[in-house]
């Protein structure tokens, strides 16, 4: 029997595993997390009394259903939690489990690796107390903690409103919700957003909630700095009317939407194309998620679409695997799923306009802003390296010259901003600046993982 391996136990991985199991397969499901559910439907530690029903709000039903479905699935799959895939070579996946390296073979590999926060730097963004927006939510859902007592939500993302609401529910104070995209851009995106009225209503509900709670809700801001002496004390920004405003806070949640976790797709040989709407390089797939023979991509790791799109794309990829193994086509189901996925991902493209990546703001950041926090590289260092004779104009070369993106996170955090700085300094579009090439290991691994040497 063919060995089917799914990486990621979020909505996409779970939906794919369900369908494969219902056709008599027993897929391996590898997940880096302690518990299944992915990031959005993350479950708290079992001994933590946390009211997930209240936290998940309108998504509580879906949250509970997904975990019920996974529980029913558990005995029909080979489930490997707390396992990192750190390299891929041909059909061999190199794993790290419990501090040890091991391998597994995959004939069909479905990568459902999810997404991470996309952040843009600003002066002061590495002060203690600054978290990514997703990190602020993880603290809440995983540990029942708030990142601060008085939190500023900064960036451009519909999740700013959602997270702020969750923080209010848990007793936190919201200093400000500051979105860099102006209201005019949001109005332009409105027709596209009607593709998913349920999500749109949740967003509008969030806005209404913020207004009722008296939280300042600003659109079209220019972030200027996060200030503080050893810890966040305030957020300074320029509002849409051009006034400088300072908000006292002890934490900042910073997020500009999500970026797919594509390192494994890269190592597995997917091709990448630049996407103008998201201003990111995304892996290329067919409508089912096929990236190359035997390689399938689903969920936010393929293209940002949210949990419902992840489930649909996971099921579609599973249909593709079944068909590629010679199964009978399930035409009606596939048609429904394809339509649903197209609608949801289309919605996300409109969202990417309503909550835009602040390209021109990033390009205008001052030289002394830290860009790469792993290697302590400032934007000025990058610009100076590019300005000299024979200076690099492509991100991988910029990295080689300046170490920007060369540290522990391998550019997963600074990569999008680096791309924008390089594009800005060389007068190119984002595509022309190039894409940071991936290399193993996907996450840092200790020498001891390789075991003892035999003298």
């Amino acid at each position, binding site marked *: 029997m063919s060995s089917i391996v799914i990486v990621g136990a979020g909505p996409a991985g779970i939906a794919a595993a369900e369908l494969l199991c219902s056709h008599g397969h027993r897929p391996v499901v590898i997940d880096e997390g302690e518990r299944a559910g992915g990031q959005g439907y993350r479950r708290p530690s079992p001994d933590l009394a946390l009211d997930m029903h209240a936290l998940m709000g309108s998504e509580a039903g879906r949250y509970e259903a997904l975990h019920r479905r996974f529980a029913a699935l558990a005995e029909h799959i080979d489930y490997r939690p707390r396992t990192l895939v750190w*390299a891929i*070579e041909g059909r061999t996946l190199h794993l790290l489990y419990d501090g040890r390296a091991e391998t597994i073979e995959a004939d069909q590999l479905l990568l459902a690796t999810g997404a991470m926060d996309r952040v843009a730097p600003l002066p002061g963004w590495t002060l203690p107390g600054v978290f990514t927006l997703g990190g602020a939510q993880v603290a809440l859902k995983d540990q029942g903690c708030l990142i601060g007592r008085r939190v500023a939500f900064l960036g451009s993302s519909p999740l700013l409103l959602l997270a702020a609401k969750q923080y209010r529910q848990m007793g936190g104070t919201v200093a400000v919700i500051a979105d860099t995209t102006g209201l005019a851009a949001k109005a332009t995106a409105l027709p596209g957003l009607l593709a998913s009225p349920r999500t749109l209503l949740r967003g509008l509900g969030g806005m209404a909630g913020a207004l009722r709670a008296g939280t300042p809700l600003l659109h079209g801001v220019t972030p200027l700095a996060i200030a503080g002496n050893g810890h966040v004390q305030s957020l300074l920004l320029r509002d849409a009317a051009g006034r400088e405003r300072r908000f006292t806070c002890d934490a900042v949640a910073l997020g500009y939407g999500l970026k797919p976790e594509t390192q494994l797709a890269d190592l597995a040989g997917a091709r990448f194309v630049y996407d103008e709407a998201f201003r990111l390089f995304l892996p290329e797939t067919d409508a089912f998620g096929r990236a190359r023979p035997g390689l399938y991509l689903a969920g936010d790791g393929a293209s940002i679409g949210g949990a419902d799109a992840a489930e649909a794309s996971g099921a579609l990829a599973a249909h593709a695997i079944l068909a590629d193994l010679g199964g009978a086509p399930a035409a009606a189901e596939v048609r429904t799923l394809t339509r649903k996925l197209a609608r949801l991902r289309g919605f996300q493209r409109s969202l990417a306009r309503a909550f835009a990546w602040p390209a021109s703001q990033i390009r205008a950041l001052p030289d002394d802003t830290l860009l790469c926090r792993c290697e302590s590289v400032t934007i000025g260092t990058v610009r100076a390296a590019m300005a000299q004779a024979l200076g690099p104009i492509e991100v991988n070369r910029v990295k080689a010259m300046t170490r920007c993106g060369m540290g522990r996170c391998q550019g997963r955090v600074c990569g999008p901003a680096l791309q924008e700085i390089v594009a800005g300094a060389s007068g190119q579009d984002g595509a022309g600046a190039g894409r940071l090439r991936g290399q193993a290991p996907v996450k*840092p691994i200790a020498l001891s993982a390789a075991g003892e040497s035999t*003298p």
Partner: protein
Amino acid sequence: MSRASTDVAIIGGGLIGVWTAFFLARRGQSVTLFEKGVVGAQSSGTNFGNLRLQGRFPGQYPLSLRSHALWEDFEALIGEGCEFAQTGHLYCAFDSDEAARLEAYAQVSQSHGLAIERLAPSDLRRRFPWLSERAIAATFCARDATANPRLATPAVARAALRQGVEIRENAPVTAVTRQGDGFRITTADGRGLSCAALVNAAGAWAVQMAECFGETAPVFAAGPPQFVTEPMPMVFAPSLQTIDGSVIARQTERGNVILAGYPRTAADAVANRAPVPPAKTLAAMRALAGLVPALAQAHVIRVWSGIEGYLPDMIPVIGRSDTTPGLFHAFGFCGHGFQIGPGVGLCLSEMILDGSTPTPLEDFAIGRFRTPAVVSEKFQKEFDRPSDMGIERSAEKGRAIG
């Protein structure tokens, strides 16, 4: 504005090409350098950065020593730094056979005037307490050094620019033909250039050009598996090498530990791919943790390799063409071109301008490949499957080199 003719054209913007350009221009030559991509992007920019004098091919010492003096003078000569660090190099043996080989290398090094310290186990424990007790002997050369390869070649290229060299990046050469006593070069964009002398420093891509003039060398592309760890507290200052090749490591000033090791892996020069098999990364991780136990919890953050040109006798081609006056070759540096790069540039400039160089380079003539290639012992040790690499093995035992 680009020239229509030049005294010397150089093909290949690696370390060899830019140093050659620099020295020629300093003596008043007009020089144009063609690079298919950007300068220093291939093995010149991806190698380990070792400037090691110990254990080199014996016939290479005059060249190596001349080159080392240039590295030691880099900043004054070039006008910017390249993280040159004269940390010394510790060469380790695990058993008595290896210790005997170390001793043989040490004698060669000393015969060329290098100061080599021989270290017994008690010396090692005292001076390098972080070193595993598995190392039973070592030699130390304080003049050995390292530099940052990512910075060196662009820095020299900029110095060459200031000397008036014309550097054409992203200019793949599509044709080279004889034109009178000189040459005519055509690039992919259709532009042409005439020159009196021509230097072939195209690395893993050099053979194609040699073959335009009726000579060849069995170059193949390969690269070492390399990795870097997160920054660690300072553990060891000298660069570190085991004579079995399992570990070549150094800790940068920032604290990252960089490792290169054998066996090397075949690379695809056409598709520009140099894979690092994860099994080799794991083997190198084991070897490093075995040699420096304090690093067991250091985390590897990235692996990489590079595309280097190798020859079966594990020494490069350096010198004038056998078939074509005015043509000079310098390629196939077999993974040890970084240290000799500046010296090769200087010698080539002398051969072109003075007709000869005081440095003996006879061992490196391209003519040695008119007869079947000698496969060195080093070659057989340092690659996975030499037979897979299309190299015919010679019954004759190769030269012993380090």
